[in-house]
């Protein structure tokens, strides 16, 4: 107990110091310090939670889904501890728990809602012992860091198999690789999926993964494709098919980045988030909320007033321009944000930001899997930006998209954006993680946005 308290005090001091010195939001370092003093600190802290934790993992949508879930729980009067700033390794989760612990070393919250990096899930499940684990999807992402999709999938399966019997796995039935994981589990998962072919396409995007049958290796037949390789599929030899979703979304209506509407279990949900990919996030959060008995009518009511997280459809007014910042970090995600911006929102002005730091992935070859061709003939201004702006410029050239000169400096990027657009214009900033941080920091420096740990 003394050790736990010491770890909490030291961790909290580190967090305060980190924020005070302006070195960032103190979102992971305190966890590092506390874990050095007490390696079991996260287990000890999460045991203090009144009800327990829900863990969210998958390639895309973790932050938004976790935030949706926190929003739902908080609205129902629960005290929620969450790792909000996208600090989703075990240190970030520990730091979040520390931040909410009192000087007596006790975590004062009812629920924990944690987004967990796919590769860290096993450790998180072991330490947190969540009541439910959500797996959103598995797309190709940062191969230099994560390795192949297959090894990540196997790690997730192992983590889910190690959950206690009372814990629930809540899985996206539309993702063939996630479905494969769920079908191997001894305890039946709670499946969710989309049931509205009016928003589907028939063909897989180029960068689709997981498109062969796990048993016979034959290419899967897709009757509907929603996002990436998520859709309605079956093996032509009858070995494998999409599990029937218990929680399904129907009658989907999309309004650019502004709003979406869908019906789940007969309840109409309308909310201020955009894009088909966010229908999945809303559906996942709904499924998790239902698994802990929140009422459908309450969920619908509460979601109406939801606000997006840092860099996820965040809106910033900048010298008369409406900037919409959308994190886009891998082919599946990028395809959806470009599609939403161009096809649903009629977007004309773009900053595409690509960095190759560790958090972005040091290998940028994936930009060739993104269908930037969608911008052709529709976008008026496209600014390739970030440390690898030159690679983006080449990608856009071969996509037949006329682009501005590549800008590696965030300040010059914004200057060019102002120069090439007019007051009242809307511009979409689609960026990888640190490219977004860089542009955002520049906006903060110029007084147009607040620091990310305050959002």
């Amino acid at each position, binding site marked *: 107990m003394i050790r736990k308290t010491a770890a909490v005090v030291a961790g909290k001091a580190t967090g305060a110091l980190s924020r005070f010195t302006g070195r960032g939001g103190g979102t992971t370092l305190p966890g590092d310090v506390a874990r050095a003093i007490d390696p079991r600190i996260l287990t000890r802290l999460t045991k203090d939670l009144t009800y327990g934790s829900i863990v969210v993992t998958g390639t895309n949508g973790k932050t938004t889904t976790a935030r949706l879930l926190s929003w739902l729980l908080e609205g129902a009067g629960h005290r929620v501890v969450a790792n909000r700033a996208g600090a989703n390794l075990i240190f970030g989760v520990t730091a979040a728990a520390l931040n909410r612990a009192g000087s007596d070393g006790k975590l004062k919250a009812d629920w924990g809602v944690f987004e967990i990096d796919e590769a860290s899930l096993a450790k998180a499940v072991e330490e947190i012992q969540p009541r439910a684990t959500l797996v959103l999807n598995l797309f*190709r992402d940062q*191969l*230099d860091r994560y390795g*192949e*999709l*297959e090894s990540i999938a196997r790690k997730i399966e192992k983590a889910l198999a190690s959950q206690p019997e009372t814990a629930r796995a809540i899985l996206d039935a539309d993702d063939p690789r996630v479905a494969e994981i769920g079908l191997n589990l001894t305890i039946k998962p709670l499946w969710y999926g989309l049931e509205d072919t009016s928003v589907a396409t028939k063909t897989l995007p*180029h*960068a*689709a*993964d997981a*498109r*062969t049958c796990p048993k016979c*290796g034959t*290419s899967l037949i897709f009757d509907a494709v929603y996002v990436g390789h998520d859709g309605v599929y079956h093996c032509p030899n009858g070995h494998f098919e999409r599990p029937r979703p218990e929680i399904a979304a129907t009658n989907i209506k999309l309004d650019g980045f502004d709003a979406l509407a869908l019906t789940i279990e007969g309840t109409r949900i309308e909310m201020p988030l955009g894009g088909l990919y966010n229908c999945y996030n809303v559906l996942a959060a709904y499924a998790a909320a239902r698994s802990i008995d929140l009422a459908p009518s309450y969920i619908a009511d509460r979601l109406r007033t939801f606000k997006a997280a840092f860099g996820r459809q965040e809106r910033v007014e900048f010298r008369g321009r409406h900037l919409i910042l959308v994190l886009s970090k891998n082919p599946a995600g990028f395809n959806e944000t470009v599609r939403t911006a161009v096809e649903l929102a009629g977007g004309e002005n773009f900053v595409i930001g690509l960095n190759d730091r560790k958090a972005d992935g*040091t*290998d*940028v*070859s*994936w*930009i*060739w*899997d993104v269908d930037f061709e969608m911008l052709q003939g529709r976008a008026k201004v496209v600014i390739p930006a970030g440390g*690898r702006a*030159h*690679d983006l*410029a*080449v*990608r856009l*050239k*071969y996509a037949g998209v006329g682009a501005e000169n*590549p800008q590696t400096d965030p300040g010059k990027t914004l200057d060019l954006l102002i120069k090439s657009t007019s007051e009242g214009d809307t511009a979409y900033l689609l960026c990888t993680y640190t490219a977004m941080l860089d542009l955002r920091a520049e906006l903060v420096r110029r007084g147009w946005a607040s620091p990310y740990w305050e959002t």
Partner: protein
Amino acid sequence: MGVAILGNVTQKLTVGWLYPDLMNIYGDRGNILTLVKRAEWRGLEASVVELGRGASDRMNDVDVFFFGGGQDREQALIYDDLREFKQESLQRAVANGAQVLAVCGGYQLLGHYYQTADGERYDGIGLIDVRTEAGKKRFIGDVVVQTDIGLTPRTLVGFENHSGRTFLGSGAKALGRIIQGKGNNGSDKTEGCVQGGIIGTYLHGSLLPKNPHLADHLIAAALKRRGDGALSSLDDSAELAAHGWILQRAQRR
């Protein structure tokens, strides 16, 4: 856009993409797009033939083959197919002057074999005189290579991510010498191989978009067998800026 006329016939370039749905892990579409666009920009009629699993009678039409890398799971799915449906016609096409660019997994499979850490051997199709053994540490990062195959500029830049260690036999020549990165095996400073019309390499990124001179080399060599292989020059400032960015970064290290 001008049209290249040879007699009264527009010149064609056919790109054959081996297993586009399964062997496509490192943005390999960039290589295909680069070949196609650069041919089109010169007025050639370019097309892509997708060579998935099963028999195809289009193998004979192909001027430039591309064979990319895949995950282990996908690679296992094409292993038998390659031998059964592709090996012979690929061999014939190369003998007739078709060009091949093979990256990473594709490069390994064109060699004699891949030997796992446990000593188990998976036979390749032996079109190039190279063999590959599993290594412990993955080689991941930027690569800069100095070539000796008549390219201008002489450098190639890309990104590698592989655990295989590839060694060249006497029939294969190295594509170039490593300036930055690990290359074939991390020990002999070689990267890739050239043997007849086949180029094997560990470089992706994608490779050809940032190395337009290598793309043109492949196109020109493939067209040469039908007469004129001379290509008009294009404005490559964007491509070479991306190329130069990696060179500059390598120098700073």
